[in-house]
């Protein structure tokens, strides 16, 4: 935690002390001003938040459906569904390029894809990679939360006359809500900050906030580091704000 605190302080310090400023000038908000004056940064914010929200919703939806399907199945199927969990994100992105890029395997098998999936402007390829990689992680969390007790509670509810929809709403959902929201927050934060997948399958423009920061360090030696630190801190603020919203949204009226 000390290292993390030091890292945050280091990033804050870097964001207000660009190398271009003279030593006597002290701290300056020039990098923050430059950041918000840059239209490319605004596009990056919109693109990154859109990616994070769409990916999180798609991942949680898929994970919930698969977990409900698998909960009464054997361990072999569960093991298969969790196959992508140990596979690094970058590796899935490489496989996505081989399959989905123009001239890739899917293109060859189908004789042409109906839409661009790799390096497309909307980041569809990025979302596909994340859903393939993250949904199994959420499925594992959900299956662990469901356990045998949930089946017993569902049986009891069925005996009392609850319909399948009522059981889903009043028995299953309260059980899975906690781990689902926790997992969704981790996925959302990861998508907001990671950039190996966008660099591999994402468009050249707009870029994600992390890519924007990386490009800033390469484009300008004097102010780049400071601009990158400001952009990354802003990404962290978005991630924390989204996490707070998700936690509040997930609370039930009883405050659980």
């Amino acid at each position, binding site marked *: 935690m000390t290292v993390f605190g030091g*890292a945050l302080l280091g990033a*804050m310090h870097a964001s207000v002390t660009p190398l271009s400023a003279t030593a006597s000038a002290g701290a300056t908000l020039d990098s923050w001003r430059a950041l918000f004056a840059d239209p490319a940064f605004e596009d990056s914010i919109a693109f990154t938040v859109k990616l994070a929200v769409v990916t999180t919703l798609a991942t949680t939806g898929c994970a919930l459906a698969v977990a409900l399907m698998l909960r009464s199945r054997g361990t072999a199927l569960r093991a298969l569904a969790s196959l992508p969990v*140990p596979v690094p994100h970058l590796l899935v*992105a490489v496989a996505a390029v081989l399959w989905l890029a123009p001239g890739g395997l899917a293109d060859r098998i189908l004789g042409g894809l109906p839409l661009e999936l790799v390096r497309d402007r909307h980041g569809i390829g990025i979302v596909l990679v994340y859903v393939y990689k993250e949904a199994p992680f959420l499925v594992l969390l959900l299956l662990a939360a469901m356990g045998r007790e949930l089946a017993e509670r569902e049986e009891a509810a069925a005996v009392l006359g609850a319909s399948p929809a009522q059981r889903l709403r009043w028995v299953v959902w309260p059980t899975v809500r906690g781990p689902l929201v926790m997992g969704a927050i981790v996925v959302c*934060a990861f998508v907001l900050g990671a950039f190996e997948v966008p660099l591999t399958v994402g468009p050249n423009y707009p870029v994600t906030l992390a890519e924007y920061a990386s490009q800033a360090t390469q484009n300008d030696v004097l102010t780049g580091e400071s601009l990158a630190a400001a952009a*990354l801190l802003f990404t*962290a603020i978005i*991630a924390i704000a989204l996490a707070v919203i998700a936690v509040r949204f997930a609370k039930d009226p009883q405050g659980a």
Partner: protein
Amino acid sequence: MLLAAFFALPLAVLVVRAFADSWRAPALVPQQFGLRGIREAFSGIALDAFASSLVVAVIGTAIAVAVGWPAARVLGERRLRRPGAVFVVLAMPLLVPSYATGNGLTEWLLRLNLADSITGLVLAHLVLVLPYVIVVLLSAFGPRVTVLEDMARSLGLTPLQRWRWVTLPAVAPTLAAATFLGFLVSWSEYGSSLAVGGGRELLPVILLPFVRSDPQIASALALLFLAPAIAALVVAARAARSPL
């Protein structure tokens, strides 16, 4: 079968591409197989990156488990009055982009003369690995382990014997899962590796540029990248089954 195909096929293509010296469109199978990609993947720079990645992941995970154990125990046994605040602090490194953490650490590491070093990379990875290890490991501790340890104490076992013969076997499955997850997080980490690595590049950092320039080498490196993750999974699964 459909599920198996859905999860396995996308990755199986990496194996074929790694051994395809020539695979031009629109052919569905390679025109020529060969070992060019594998030779490049096992060349000096890639092997150095592989070794650095492995050392950083192993040391980082070992430290995270050692430091995370007492923290997980306190949290798991609900000994804190306000655990909520601790969980918020624990969650923060997971919410902040790892590239931001790495970026913020760079200046400190330069001042401490740790830039481009294994120590610097381990420190940067620890920020991410430690919360994951603690969050997973805390579920292993609770009344069940405490009761077992009390029984062992009443039978006259020393603290070391209790740890070796009671605590460790009781938490083995969760410990294996936490260790595996910690290794995986460090092994796959890109953002902080790029920010802090500098002159000492890790495997994911050298892999990425090849995706656009040479898919065969990228696929071969991807296989090299996958191997330790799978090995760690197998080891963790065995450790989880048998008492240590």
